[in-house]
């Protein structure tokens, strides 16, 4: 969007005719306030940039130190995370994060897109209002509470169903995560579906299609970009979630054999171990490297998201 700036503004202050000059004290104060405010917003953006730089530099630098004592191949591809015996292979944790995210999306995407279609096309307006409020409430519930519910309600069910005596693992974690990313994916796809012009719908109906045909052949393809951004947002949330997962995944750094074996992901591993290690040790550096990896991953997802959005903008 191009902003049209009024002609009279030079250097942020208005030279609106000689009248301004004659205003005297009040005018001076106004201009002073104007300059002070400008300083203030510049100060805020500077401090924001400082925080950005600190995150990137402090976490990145500390993390990358790990490669002084460890080869990147060992760190990324070895599946053996036994820090007590100086074996720092993050491969299993990275795979754990990827598998958990994949499994979560497998559950969450069909569910939430289905509900989004229901919300935007089928359900009556009064129910829609209630539904949206409920989804907003769901977003607001703290992640420890999700973890707690998973621990006290979901795990006993899984234990009974699978016969394992713990029940912690990818299945429990992905079910809890599904509930957590569902409102995000739902709301964003719902917005995308609602934004499809109603003339498209009318055209489809005029050709004699049923509602299902309209949804499958017109609505969802038209909103596909919006749905894709919703999925990316959900993915970003799933990758970074920590406390809810810590409580239900079992926190054992091993490759999971099945969905109910205790395992660990990047976030859970960091939070369980960082408090117990020396800051200047390979162990701690390896944990920082994992955090840096998470940082890069989510930045990459956001760049992808912007690309998806920008392309959509050009077409429209």
């Amino acid at each position, binding site marked *: 969007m191009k902003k049209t700036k009024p002609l009279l503004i030079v250097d942020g*202050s208005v030279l609106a005719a000689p009248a301004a000059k004659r205003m005297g004290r009040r005018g001076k104060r106004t201009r002073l306030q104007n300059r002070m*405010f400008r300083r203030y917003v510049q100060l805020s953006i500077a401090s924001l940039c400082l925080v950005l730089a600190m995150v990137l530099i402090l976490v990145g630098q500390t993390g990358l130190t790990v490669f002084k004592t460890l080869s990147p191949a060992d760190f990324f591809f070895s599946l053996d995370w036994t820090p007590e015996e100086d074996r720092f292979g993050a491969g299993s944790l990275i795979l754990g994060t990827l598998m958990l995210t994949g499994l979560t999306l497998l559950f969450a995407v069909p569910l939430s897109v289905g*509900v989004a279609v229901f919300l935007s096309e089928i359900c009556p307006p009064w129910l829609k209002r209630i539904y949206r409020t409920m989804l907003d409430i769901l977003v607001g519930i703290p992640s420890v509470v999700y973890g707690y519910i998973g621990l006290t309600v979901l795990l006993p069910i899984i234990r009974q169903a699978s016969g394992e005596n713990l029940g912690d693992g990818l299945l429990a974690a992905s079910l809890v995560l599904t509930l957590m990313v569902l409102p995000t994916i739902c709301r964003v796809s719902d917005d995308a579906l609602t934004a499809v012009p109603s003339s498209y719908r009318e055209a489809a109906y005029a050709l004699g299609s049923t509602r299902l045909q309209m949804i499958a052949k017109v609505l969802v393809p038209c909103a596909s970009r919006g749905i894709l951004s919703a999925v990316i947002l959900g993915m970003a949330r799933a990758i970074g979630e920590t406390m809810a997962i810590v409580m239900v995944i079992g926190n054992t750094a091993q490759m999971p054999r099945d969905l109910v074996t205790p395992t660990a992901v990047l976030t859970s591993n960091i939070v369980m171990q960082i*408090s117990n290690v020396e800051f200047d040790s390979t162990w701690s550096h390896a*944990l920082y490297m994992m955090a840096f990896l998470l940082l890069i991953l989510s930045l990459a997802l956001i760049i992808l998201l912007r690309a998806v959005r920008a392309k959509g903008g050009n077409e429209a």
Partner: protein
Amino acid sequence: MSLAERNVSRSLRHNRAVRFWNQTATFGFWLLGVLLLSLILWLLFTIMNKGLFSIDFSFLTKLPEDMDEGGGIGPVLFNSFYILILSLALSVPLGIGAGIYLAEYAPKGKLTEFIRVCVEGLASVPSIVFGLLGIAIFVEAFGIGLTILGASVTLAFLNLPVLTRVTEEAVRAVPEEYRSAAYALGSTKFQCIRRVVLPAAMSGIITGICLTAGRAFGESAVIILTAGLSTSGRMWDFNLFSPGETLAVHLWYIQSEALVADARQIADKSAAVLVVVVLLINLVFRIPLWLRTRRMK
């Protein structure tokens, strides 16, 4: 049967199949919607039901016990609010300022665009990354250990990009004509922003602050790493350098490591308190907004 008749019967059959699938799908969507809604309601009911009705005032104010039954959550609840308020006091002014800068002052160009990408990226970076940043700064560089101060500042770092984004979006959504009108009346940029742009963007900004505050209240990964798992053991401890376990952390701690006898009840009640406070934060801040929209109507 003639060819025409056969065609008619085939298309009739096709029509029937199409209608059947349409009806099945409608039913399916309704089923899905109703099931999910009841799941959400059941979830809220479970959280509230187990804890809410057994909460009394002394539970909210008493000190936690190490081993015996009947401990409260006084200091951790206090720490939650204390850290929340400190972090908001730091991050709200800076976040709003930075958002206004990005929307109103920033020159167009590669650098601005880069900052924007970074802000959007950091707004979705896992909170644990900020936790590690907090450790690196406060525990290692400054050597003050696990403190309320460290947790508040780190939490403010976490909130800053989110607040900046929300503000920028809300300010950008204000129509350009408003600004032109303000300038035409001879206002300076500051007057225009303060009297015209900010009031118009206020509801978006406040909603954003509410959501951020709710998120910060329930945040636990950052707090565990920067404020620790213990309190100073006193009520109303305003000391910035004492350890500051919050309610969200307490819920995790009591469930996984504590030895106290009635851990389950305390956890149930703490979960209910957490959810109720987050809902209240989202509600209370918005009441002025409702009143304002009413008045404007």
